[in-house]
């Protein structure tokens, strides 16, 4: 076998085995403890519910996925801009950083209805909630990358009469790349969580529904097997976005050639 394929298979095998074991244990427990289907359905029931609603779940995946992607993109742009601002002046950083922590600590569940009140029951609100949830790791990581520089490298630039612009483009920005990628990975997963929370509050009254609203709807209708199917779908969505960002990140890092 091709060695790259081989190492990929070896990497995939343990989590796959864990997954199978988990599903088997789940099924066995439901049967053994006689758990009611409206509390925990059997795995096959979830699969069946997913097949019955595959169009609804499919369009939900797409809607939530696009909202999360837009939220992530927004937090990427805003986060890098804020980090850049922070890196330009200690005073700015000191005065604004405590308020950046707000994005980390804000109880988004409580604030989401407010945002919907301001921006309406549509995708825009969902994207904003997603961006708020995923913003903080980008700000902190990028700020660190722009400001925590090798002392000797800074002296080297100073000694050669580097301008501020040269220092920014030839030292700070390249230095921040691996930090930004690490932040983006964390943030990508959060953006899906944010989109689903947003849809909890703003997902109804539209022609098509995102996964967040489907979870809300199926749970209130006690269609627990369908709700499980939606939860699995949103988990897969999170993995998909995280995986895509990680893949792009690794490719960039490879070009960047970190140690």
């Amino acid at each position, binding site marked *: 076998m091709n060695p790259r394929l081989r190492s990929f298979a070896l990497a995939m095998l343990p989590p796959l085995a864990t997954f199978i074991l988990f599903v088997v244990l789940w099924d066995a427990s439901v049967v053994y403890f006689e758990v009611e289907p409206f509390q925990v359905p059997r795995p096959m029931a979830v699969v069946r519910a997913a097949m019955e609603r595959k169009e609804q779940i499919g369009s939900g995946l797409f809607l939530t996925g696009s909202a999360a992607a837009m939220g992530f993109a927004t937090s990427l742009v805003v986060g890098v801009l804020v980090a850049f601002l922070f890196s330009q002046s200690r005073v700015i950083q000191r005065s604004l950083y405590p308020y950046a922590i707000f994005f980390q600590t804000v109880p988004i569940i409580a604030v989401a209805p407010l945002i919907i009140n301001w921006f309406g029951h549509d995708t825009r609100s969902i994207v904003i909630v997603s961006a708020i949830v995923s913003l903080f790791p980008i700000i902190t990581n990028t700020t660190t990358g722009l400001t925590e520089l090798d002392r000797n490298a800074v002296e080297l630039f100073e000694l050669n009469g580097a301008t501020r612009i040269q220092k920014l483009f030839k030292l700070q920005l390249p230095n921040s790349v691996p930090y930004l990628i690490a932040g983006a990975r964390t943030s990508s997963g959060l953006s899906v969580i944010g989109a689903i929370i947003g849809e909890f509050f703003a997902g109804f009254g539209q022609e098509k529904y995102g996964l967040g609203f489907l979870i809300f709807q199926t749970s209130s209708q006690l269609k627990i097997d369908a709700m499980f199917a939606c939860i699995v779908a949103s988990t897969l969505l999170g993995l998909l976005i995280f995986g895509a960002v990680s893949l792009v990140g690794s490719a960039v890092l490879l070009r960047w*050639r970190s140690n």
Partner: protein
Amino acid sequence: MSDENYLQMDGVSLRFPTGVVALDGVDLTVPRGEFLGIVGPSGCGKSTLLRVVAGLIAPTAGRVAVAGAEVGAARRARRAVAFVFQSATLLPWRTVVRNVQLPLELRGRLAPEQRAHIDETIDLVGLSYFRNSYPHQLSGGMQMRVSLARALVTRPELLLLDEPFGALDDITRQRLNEELLALWERDRFTALFVTHNVAEAAFLTGRTVVMSPRPGRIVSEHVIPFAHPRGPELRASAEFAHLSGEIAASLRRVVA
């Protein structure tokens, strides 16, 4: 100024805001083209002394002049000074050649006719085959060679070296000493070489001063009279052992 006092330090002191006196009344005159060694125990202010000469740190008292111009006051000093740090300090996202050309980029637009000079400098440190490699693909000794090339590419009048080979194994260190000395024998730039390795100072320099710690001041001076070119066999000679012993004895007195 004449060539006799290319670098002139008069009563240079540096007291940090914490109250630590890093340098205390250092007087030092270095003629153009001298290879001066500065040895001392760690924490004696050797590195600080180099940074003051480079204009990276301003002294709290005294005067430093390079080629007659006060350091720090005039940016021009930077044109003539290059610094080799304790760690190679290469930018990991740049290849060897792009690391070496960095000082030229920072000093102004890179002219096409500088290409040949950059390549030549990389040749000089024996890394032509690695010009497109990234730092992480090189050994510690090779990384230090790149660092040396990056300093030499600006054709410095004054080369400041801050324990550049301290992290290398003995054989690599000796080889790099020989290469550095050959470069100096060729170009005769002025060099200040900080180390805590006595044999290294005795091999490389024409004169070595010993510094004491806290407060950092110069306590003794040793002229190293060996003729150039010097080869590795010098290290096996009785005179070499004798001189190294003298410097080591002086160093022991300040440590005790």
